[in-house]
């Protein structure tokens, strides 16, 4: 089965869980006064889950033959040719950046993300990479903090605010 149909199957399962919650898990919590309304908080989700499951079934059954979209040149069958490990490491890097923003502080976390990201992608000119990452980290922090007025912890948590 092609990837698009597997994805449709997963989406159908998600819609089934969503529909189950809408049909059997929401109405009991509704205050009696709201039950007099012709429309309940679960009404729209119920309709969506039914239509969603039907649409997913059409895709799973391949009723409408799939065609590749114009301009979409990424092909899953060539996954061995792609730099999958670089992408995975960058995704992990993004998650690490998100989790370390508070503990490491904006300046250190951003510097590390930009510098290590460049390093991972093959940049070896450290004399360029380090100053660019440093200036960008400080420059963006200054812009966000002082000009846009949005506070972001600049230093690691153990140094305090």
């Amino acid at each position, binding site marked *: 089965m092609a990837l698009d149909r597997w994805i449709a199957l997963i989406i159908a399962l998600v819609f089934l869980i*969503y529909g189950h919650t809408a049909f059997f898990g*929401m109405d009991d919590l509704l205050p009696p006064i709201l039950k007099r309304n012709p429309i309940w908080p679960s*009404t729209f*989700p119920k309709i969506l889950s039914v239509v969603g499951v039907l649409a997913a079934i059409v895709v799973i059954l391949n009723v409408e033959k799939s065609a590749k979209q114009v301009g979409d040149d990424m092909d899953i069958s060539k996954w061995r*040719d792609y730099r999958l490990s670089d*992408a995975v490491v*960058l995704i992990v890097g*993004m998650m690490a950046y998100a989790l370390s923003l508070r503990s490491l502080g904006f300046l250190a976390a951003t510097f590390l993300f930009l510098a290590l990201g460049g390093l991972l992608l*093959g940049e070896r000119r450290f004399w360029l990479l380090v100053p660019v990452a440093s200036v960008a980290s400080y420059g963006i922090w200054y812009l966000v903090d002082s000009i846009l007025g949005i506070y972001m912890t600049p230093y690691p948590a153990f140094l305090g605010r």
Partner: protein
Amino acid sequence: MIEGLLLGIHTALSLKNMLMIFGGCIVGTFIGMLPGLGPMSIIAIMIPVAISLGDPAAALILLAGVYYGAIFGGSTSSILINAPGVASTVATSFDGYPLTRQGKAGKALTIAAISSFAGGTIGAILLLFFAPTLASVALLFHSSEYFALMVVGLSAIAAFAGSGQVFKALLMTIAGLVLATIGEGAQFNMPRFTMGIMDLQSGIGFITLAMAMFAIPETLFLVLDPARSGKASDKQSEISNLRITREEAKKIAPVVGRQSIQGFLIGVMPGAGATIASFLGYAVERNIAQKDEREEFGKGSVKGLAAPESANNAACTGSFVPLLTLGIPGSGTTAILLGALIALNVSPGPRLMQDQPDIFWSVIISMYIGNVVLLILNLPLIPYIAKVLTVPRTFLIPFILFFTLMGAYIGQNNATELLFLVGMGVAATILRFASYPLAPLLIGFILGPMLEDNFSRATQLHDGIGFIWERPMTAVLLLAAIILIVLPPLRSRAKQKS
């Protein structure tokens, strides 16, 4: 209308808004030129900046400038390095890149700039007449017609998704509508589908979802396939000669006129957008060209370059018609703009022209000014702007990802939102691999609350779903929506059988 126009000119020509137009066009051109980054990603990245302005007119003018600049920038990378950032500039590369290979990169960029300018300007003139008329008709609509109209809009977006893509697009639209039901909506004042997670109480952030759907997959594709970045190398020296001959100007003039009108009309239709406009424009001009000229198409024809360029810019302007007059976005880009407006407490729709005429008219006027700015500022600056193509991907990719993360962080100020962004971004990348269109998901997400709100109001007003058959206009629109979904697959099946 004259009063409104004068108000629009007054607002758009203020120093602040002029700076927004200039800034938006330049930033859009610079970033739009980077292969792999389309207008949707750029606008998504710029939204936190626009919202921080606090002025809806200035924010929308800035984002519209970014939009035009990004389209123009995308054409530049198509012409110079055969790396169209988005599908709407693929047709530009058919004849643009061959011209570059012939050493006529400057000429190709000039033709693209002039055609884009003409397409955008003609589109803006048509918008001036279309928008107020449609807005006055839309004022007669009740909540049931609005509900039905939104269903038609969402169905049209799925119907125009392309052969074999209708149900995938429909599935994505419904996924967007489902995501929109998460959180504590204003209507029922009770949390839905939050799974006990506190951060989901206020729902999923629109900026986070926009970034996850567009910026992350496009950047990850650049990581996965370095060839997508293209190479600028030796094209710089060929850009300096920007002249076109009088004969070439005569050749492209009727093409630009025709394709601007056709592109605008296609842009007005929800879901059709700039991609269809540019491909259709190219195909029409090739078909009506004389035999000797037809053979030039694909080998560096000036007509083949002018047609998609004028059509896609006019379509971009056309897509503002349903946004400004009905509050229904016809494309992913206008959906992002709608999200930004909602964040600024502005509700686009037929009342916008009456309630906030300064926003309505200044956006239309800013389109004229934006086109002029693009022409007079970018054309002489092309050789310098094109230098952005030489930025190595080792710097480019971490920076794009960083700005994407920052955009979501500034909007919500919590790390959970960033983890959600990364998770959704990875899911969106997998969906892109399986050729699922992502714009319908975002459009569904943005229209979801409005759709449910109008459905609820109509249901309460008619004490049930009787409005579907009691109001003829609603019934006709809903029937049209069903036809839009069912007809394309049936036609393609019939075609396959024959």
